[in-house]
């Protein structure tokens, strides 16, 4: 009885094909593909979510914009800078013309952006000081900028400078700009 069982076992063992190597190969391929796919997409997402403030002065709405794929040879820091610069410019320029939104004063340019940890510094040009005089515009403009910049991964605070200098508030203004702004400030 035991002989028969033993021989039966031997017979089963002989007939089973060896799947181990193909399974390991397939597993490695799957892991490699997954790693490549996630790395590729994590390193070069080119869709950015930008926010604008509606004409009620407080409601922020998102819209997506696309930046060209990451240029070959640019480092991760350069790519993060490019994305932040593009996001800041989009936020300052605002949504397409047929969308009613509170917009920064005409001619306001984004001189540059710089990322330090989780804070991005957005350097605006002097034209941002040409505010019409109320809290409405200032609040809505900077709210959309802060929401747009903090939609970037790893960014939670936005320091505003004007032509390279920090300023406590805009001339004749209302908003405090000396400290970095956060979404929770609005």
């Amino acid at each position, binding site marked *: 009885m035991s002989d028969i069982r033993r021989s039966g076992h031997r017979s089963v063992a002989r007939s089973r094909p060896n799947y181990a190597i193909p399974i390991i190969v397939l597993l490695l391929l799957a892991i490699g593909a997954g790693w490549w796919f996630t790395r590729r997409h994590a390193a070069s997402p080119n869709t950015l979510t930008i926010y604008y403030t509606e*004409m*009620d*002065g*407080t409601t922020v709405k998102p819209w997506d*914009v*696309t*930046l*060209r794929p990451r*240029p*070959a040879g*640019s480092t991760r820091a350069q790519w993060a800078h*490019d994305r932040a*610069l*593009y996001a800041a*410019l*989009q936020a*300052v*320029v*605002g949504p*397409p*013309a*047929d969308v009613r939104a509170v*917009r920064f*004063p*005409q*001619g306001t*340019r*984004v*001189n540059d952006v710089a990322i330090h*940890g*989780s*804070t991005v510094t957005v350097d605006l040009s002097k034209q941002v000081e040409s505010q*019409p*005089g*109320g*809290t*409405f*515009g200032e*609040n809505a403009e*900077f709210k959309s900028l802060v929401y747009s910049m903090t939609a970037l991964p790893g960014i*939670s*605070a936005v320091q505003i400078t004007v032509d390279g200098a920090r*300023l*406590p*508030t*805009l*001339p*004749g*203004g*209302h*908003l*405090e*700009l*000396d*400290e970095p*702004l*956060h979404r*929770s*400030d*609005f």
Partner: protein
Amino acid sequence: MNRSIARISSAFFALCFALLCVPRAAVAAPLWQFAGRTFAFTHVERSDSTLLVGIDDPALHRLFHALGAIVTWKPGARYVLIATGEPTIVSFAIGHRTYDIGPLAVRSKVAPVVRGGEAYLEFDALARSLGLRKIADGATTILQPQITNLDVRDEGSGMRVIARGAIPLEARLARASPRQMTYAFAGVGSGLLHLRSVDAGGLVAVEISQAGTAANPTTYITLDLDGSSHVAQVGSLDGRDIGFVIAPGSGEVAANLPPTLAHPRPAATAPPTPTPQVAVALRPPPNSELPTVSPWNRVANEPLATSPPVAEVTPAPLVSLAQIDAIQAQLTPDGVTLHVALTGAASFDWHHLRAPDNRFWIDLHGATLEPTAIPPSTSAPIADVRARQIDPQTVRIALSINGAHDIAVTPAATGVDIAVNGAPLLADISTAGTGVAGTGTPSVTLAAAAPVAGGDPNLWSVNPVAAYVPTNPRLIVIDPGHGGSDRGAVRHGVAEAVLTLDMAKRLRAILEARGWQVIMTRTKDVDVYAPYDTAEQELQARDNIANRAGARLLVSIHANAYINAGPNGTTTYYAKPIDEPLARDIQNELAAQVGTKNDGIVKSHLYIPLHAFMPACLVETAFLSNPDDFALLTNPAWRQKVAVAIADGITDYAGAPPPPIQPQQ
């Protein structure tokens, strides 16, 4: 034979050498024409007969300026980003032929290149993205700005036709009849030439046609009406567009006409038919009860609310100011300690923001910064030490800290010690505190401030004072926004600074009649700090008045404004958590009493409430820029309503004023 070969060879090499030596600008200097001006680009490259222009080219800069376009690029950057005046963002990636015009991906013949630190872009792609059409005219190429977009919308109440152009559009009424209105746009062409059938809202069709020359075009937009409607409104939202509103009924071309319609420019080309004389009815000026006043005049001839005259409460005069003689850094086993050496006594409040800011500052009140007090060189973990006199009686010492570190503030007889622990914290919270340092009695008494609790993201970036105990609970501070050299928003010669002062005086009278003590940060049309001071000096001076007086609450009164007449309504802004109940009560009363659109309460990072220790809010009463709101703002009876509503809101929030403290016998 050999000699011939040698001659041919030398001639060939000489020709090559000569070609290499010819300046690039001289290779191609075609002439261009835009808005009647002829120019040539000087920063040019050619690639396979395609013209590339350097973005630093002076002529290109003038073209960008004329079109309201802004270029963002600097050497080393990988993208050239252009914000057109429309506005749309055009992005060119160096080395890539595909570029984006907003959401539209377009392919150029030649990829942008960098030569000598300057980015060169294909000019055809540039012209296209800027809304310019190239038209050859002999040796010159005309760059004709286009009407780039014509949008027809059914907005329920009527149809709206919106035209947008590569340049700001100016419309002139060229022909008018009950069934057809034709508007001329001089200086622009259009590739949108067609007849568009609509048949909705009284609008039958929209037709675009073009006349004139390539250099001097005129585009006509004709609105075909069904006879039961009329063009009720013509206006621009942002200067780049012209919108026509078609409404039911018959009527004249009315409100919000841009000046160019009221005073049309001479047509560059003859219109298709002689221009008839059309009655253009401009909206009459709002029914203002204000006399025409210069921005510097106060509102005259307006009765204030009757109340018994109450002597104005003024802050106690300062006795003497302490002196900050030195700021010294000392390494300790635990980290670094800054000693702020003080002669006299000063009260102080300090604030420490949590990561990622890690910033710390201490304000010493009733103190001056002596020239000897030079911030020391820094040692880790302190990255920077700054000291400045932020107003005549307050010195601020600010530290930038690398990473999150524990900071202890200890007052002493000789000054204040600020000990920064060198060991990094794994988690920190925003903290704050107050105290008195030095010897003697400080000239300024601060209310006690409790450190904030951690964890609430709403707390960490605002002036972190969660609990406030007023030293004078009967006192309310009213801040009339702007004043003096800062007029605030101005419309038709009426300045916000004048209106806010008037409403503040009315509010003061009501509050005093109800038993409150009131301080106004200004009682005249003056700057609170100094004429032509900075905004920070001005705003901080107003907060200082309330902070030093230990007031129960602070209300700042403003009038709102925007670049167009659209936004209207009343909003109460706040910043700190302790401001919100006050803002809500005031806004509720305003919404119930003053009849403007209720825009609710809005949290914002505003200087005045942020830097006030007490509950504070900023009331934007109405929009100077909106005609209906403007009519209210210039009506004394309405301003009185506002004052009553704010006073009622304060009563809702704070109840009745506490009884005055009886002087001891």
